[in-house]
């Protein structure tokens, strides 16, 4: 369970990227966060594992208050947060297996890290994940020899091998072609279900968000302006998220407007519970 409370971030440059964002993410939810460029999506996920230090508010993961930890404790806590990056952020000159195993670094000594000497269970788990993401027999390829889609799969495997309590993905698809983007989204949603972890995905493509997420968060200029099931994302709410339009009627004062009536514009594959999707081909 991840919970942020009035999370805020003002960069040293004076940009207020995030203001009072309170969100609770539970169970095996797939949550997509959408919003225009510069809305603060990256800032939000980075504040969760404190790659960016939030300036106000708090973040809790299960019983741990992440924002109260010192450096050592934070490192231990980060082991429970998997993160997938837009630019993959893999160690390019290392092999696929070394990159996947790097997800276990928090559990091994420096000396073992140097010798790439990971416990057999970790290696086994890494192999299983490589099979899962469709990279079997690629373990000894160097990452700089892979395509973007393959790299992102390695990135996902690295995050999942951590056995995290939550998986964060910052625009995992925006360097990929549409076909590969769908595969990656499918993979992430399958993982949420199979491993019973919540997944928070920053994403620009609204159609992908609607198709794969159970729930959608809309961010505009650092503020949370939409939070509801994917089926509730109306044209109006898109206007609010992307153009900062005032919400219709007195919705702003009524906390329930978010989960208001569904409408005709989101008639595409409405149910996204994941359970009815076929698993990725193996």
């Amino acid at each position, binding site marked *: 369970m991840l919970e942020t409370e009035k999370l805020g971030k003002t960069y040293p440059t004076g940009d207020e990227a995030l203001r009072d964002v309170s969100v609770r993410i539970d169970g095996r939810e797939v949550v997509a966060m959408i919003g225009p460029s510069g809305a603060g999506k990256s800032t939000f996920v980075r504040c969760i594992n404190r790659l960016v230090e939030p300036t106000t508010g708090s973040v809790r993961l299960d019983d741990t208050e992440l924002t109260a930890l010192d450096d050592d404790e934070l*490192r231990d806590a980060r082991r429970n947060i998997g993160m997938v990056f837009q*630019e*993959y*952020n*893999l*160690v390019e000159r290392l092999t696929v297996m070394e990159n996947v195993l*790097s997800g276990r670094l*928090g559990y091994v000594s420096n000396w073992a*890290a140097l010798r790439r000497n990971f416990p057999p269970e970790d290696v086994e788990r890494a192999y299983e994940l490589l099979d899962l993401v469709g990279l079997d027999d690629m373990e000894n390829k160097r990452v700089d020899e892979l395509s973007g889609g393959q790299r992102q799969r390695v990135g996902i495997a690295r995050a999942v091998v951590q056995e995290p309590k939550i998986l964060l993905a910052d625009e995992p698809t925006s360097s990929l072609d549409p076909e590969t983007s769908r595969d990656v989204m499918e993979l992430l949603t399958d993982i949420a279900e199979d491993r019973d972890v919540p997944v928070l995905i920053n994403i620009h493509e609204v159609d992908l968000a609607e198709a794969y997420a159970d729930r959608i968060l809309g961010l505009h200029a650092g503020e949370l302006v939409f939070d509801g099931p994917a089926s509730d994302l109306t044209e109006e709410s898109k206007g609010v998220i992307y153009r900062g339009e005032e919400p219709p009627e007195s919705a702003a004062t009524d906390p329930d407007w978010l989960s208001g009536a569904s409408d005709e514009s989101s008639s595409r594959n409405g149910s996204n519970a994941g359970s009815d999707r076929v698993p990725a081909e193996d």
Partner: protein
Amino acid sequence: MAGATREWSRFDARERLFRIGGALVAVAVVVASWEWLDMSLQYVTTAPAQVGDLLGRMYPPDWGYLPNAVGPLAETIQIAVVGTIAAVAMAAPVAYITAENTTPNRATYALGKLIVTVSRSVHTIVWALLFVVMFGPGALAGTVATAVRSIGFLAKLLGEEIEEINFGQVEGIRAVGASPAQLLIYGIVPQIKPALVGLTVYRWDINVRAATILGFVGAGGIGVQLFEAIDSFAWRTVSALLFAILAVVLVSEGISAYARRKVR
């Protein structure tokens, strides 16, 4: 529009002036240099004949001397090996403070630049002169001179490599909860390893050549024998030694090129 064109042509003319002016200055300086050196043309014209005469006296090389050169040649290589390794060890921290993205503050940055500059501007043979005073004649002085001379080169190029590091890769490792040492091992070292190995091997190759002359000032290596042979006009020994040096240098160049091709 017309104004812009005129601006452009004026700039072009200035550029051409700069070039012609530069060329004229260069020619003038060369002519003045020639005058200053006051070398009679006749003296210069006899030079080829004298060099030819010398080459004649070098032939045939005294191959029989070469077994005596094996030890000193080995010492030359050893000086290069130890000097290079010591230089790498000392250059690593200097590179760290010379790279703009890792240096702690302006003062350390300036210190790093100073070390690099001094190390690079003073030739190996001059460093050797100074270290002979400190350590006495012998290979130790030569090794230290080689190391000190190499620091600047290595630190400068390694520092540039550190400046090119992709911090996204480091961040990816940080996000999994790695320790600072693990960040170094996993996030940074793989990124600079090819450069580190390549530069080390390359510098070793340069140092093998440089170590052949250390003996001229008593700092060890094959230069000692070469200097003695030249001093006693044993030209056939000199030519044999030159061939031996050539062979050693070419072999180390080959090893260095091969190793640099291998790491990537």
